[in-house]
C-alpha cells in the first residue's frame, strides 16, 4: 500500500493489507473550481500521518472528502478496502471514521459532561464508564465536568473535542488544524496524547499548517502544494523540503 500511489509504506503497516483509510485519485471542487487534483493518500493502521502545507493548499478539503463532508468529483475514498465514496459523514462516523473539525465543533452551551453524554448516544456503553476513560486521559476535563464548554480555554476545548471523539471508539481519527489558536506548550501536550492514541491502534490523519508541531509524533507526512501531494516521506526526510513547500521556493 502506498501513500502517494508509488511509494511503499515502511514501518508497522503490512503492505498487503488495505489501510483503514485511503484516498485514491481524489479530485474535488468548490463551485466548479477544482482544488484537489487527484491526490493519493493512505493512513495505515495505528499510524499518525501528517498532511502539511501552506494555507490554501487543499489540506482541509482533503479531510472533508475523507470525512464524507464533500463528495469528490473523481476518485474514491476507501475504508478498510471498501469504497465509501459518497457515504454521508454521519454514516462514516457511525462505523468509526471520526472527525474533529477545524474550530473543534463543540457546543458552547453544553457542559463537559453533557458532551460526553451526547457521545454515548452513538454507542451502547454506559456514561460512567466513558466518563472514567475520558477523565483518565484528560484529567483537566474531570475537574471541569460541570463547566460550560464555551467557557473552557482553547486547549481544554480541544481536549473535550478529542475526548468526545475517542469515547465513540473510532478506528480512524481525522484531526483538522488541532493547533489553531493554541499556545505551543498546549499543542505539544495535545500531540503527546495523539501519539498515545495512535499507539492504541487508532489510525490518525492530522492536517496541520504548523509542521513542526506535528512532525515530532508523525510516522509519515505528506506535503500538499496547490491541491497536489508534492512529497511523501518520514518527518526526517521531509524536514529540508518544508520551507520550499511553505514559501514556494
Amino acid at each position: 500500500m502506498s501513500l502517494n500511489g508509488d511509494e511503499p509504506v515502511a514501518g508497522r503497516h503490512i503492505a498487503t493489507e488495505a489501510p483503514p483509510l485511503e484516498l485514491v485519485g481524489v479530485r474535488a471542487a468548490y463551485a466548479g473550481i477544482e482544488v484537489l487534483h487527484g491526490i493519493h493518500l493512505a493512513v495505515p493502521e495505528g499510524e499518525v500521518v501528517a498532511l502539511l502545507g501552506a494555507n490554501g493548499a487543499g489540506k482541509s478539503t482533503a479531510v472533508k472528502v475523507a470525512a464524507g463532508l464533500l463528495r469528490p468529483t473523481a476518485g474514491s475514498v476507501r475504508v478498510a478496502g471498501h469504497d465509501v465514496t459518497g457515504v454521508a459523514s454521519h454514516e462514516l462516523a457511525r462505523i468509526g471514521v471520526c472527525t474533529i473539525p477545524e474550530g473543534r465543533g463543540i457546543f458552547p452551551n453544553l457542559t463537559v459532561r453533557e458532551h460526553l453524554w451526547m457521545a454515548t448516544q452513538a454507542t451502547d456503553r454506559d456514561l460512567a464508564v466513558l466518563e472514567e476513560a475520558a477523565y483518565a486521559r484528560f484529567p483537566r476535563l474531570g475537574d471541569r465536568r460541570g463547566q460550560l464548554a464555551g467557557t473552557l480555554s482553547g486547549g481544554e476545548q480541544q481536549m473535550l473535542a478529542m475526548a468526545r471523539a475517542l469515547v465513540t471508539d473510532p478506528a480512524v481519527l481525522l484531526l483538522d488544524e488541532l493547533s489553531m489558536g493554541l499556545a505551543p506548550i498546549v499543542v505539544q501536550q495535545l500531540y503527546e496524547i495523539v501519539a498515545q492514541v495512535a499507539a492504541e491502534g487508532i489510525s490518525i490523519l492530522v492536517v496541520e499548517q504548523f509542521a513542526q508541531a506535528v512532525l515530532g509524533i508523525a510516522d509519515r507526512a505528506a506535503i500538499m502544494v496547490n491541491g497536489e501531494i508534492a512529497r511523501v516521506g518520514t518527518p526526517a526526510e521531509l524536514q529540508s523540503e518544508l520551507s520550499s513547500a511553505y514559501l514556494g521556493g
Partner: protein
Amino acid sequence: MNDRIERLKSDAAELNVGKGAGRDGLYQSLGAVAMAAGVVLAFVAYQLSLGKDDSRDIQSLQILALAMLALSIAGAAVFVRYSLARFLRFWLLRQLYEGQAHIDQVVEAIAGRAAGGVADGATGPAGTAGTGEREVGSTGELV
C-alpha cells in the same frame, strides 16, 4: 490487524454506498414533481369531466381529479419534509456558530473586566452565568 479494524472492515462492507448523500435531494425532487403533476392532472381531469354527458364518466374523472389532488398534497408534504431537513441542518450549524461567537464575547468581556481590576464584575452575575454548571445523573440522564 486488530479487532477494531476487523469491525471497521465489516461495517464498511455493510454501508449503502451512494444512497446516503443524494437521498434527500432525490426525495425533494420527487416531492416537487408529484406536487406539480398532481395539480395539473387534477385540473385536466376536472376539465375533462365537464365535457362528459354520462354521469359514470363524470364521477370517474372527478374521482381521478381528487386522487391527483391527494397526490399533490402528499408530494407537497414530502417536498417540505426534505427541504426542512436540509434547512434545519444549516440552521443548526448557524446556531452553533453564533452561540460560540456569543460565548467568546462574554468570556472576553469577563476576562477584560477581571484584568481591569473590577473585582465585582469578575465575580458578579456575568461571571456566574459564564461558568454556570449543570449536573448529569449517574445513569446518564440530564438533571
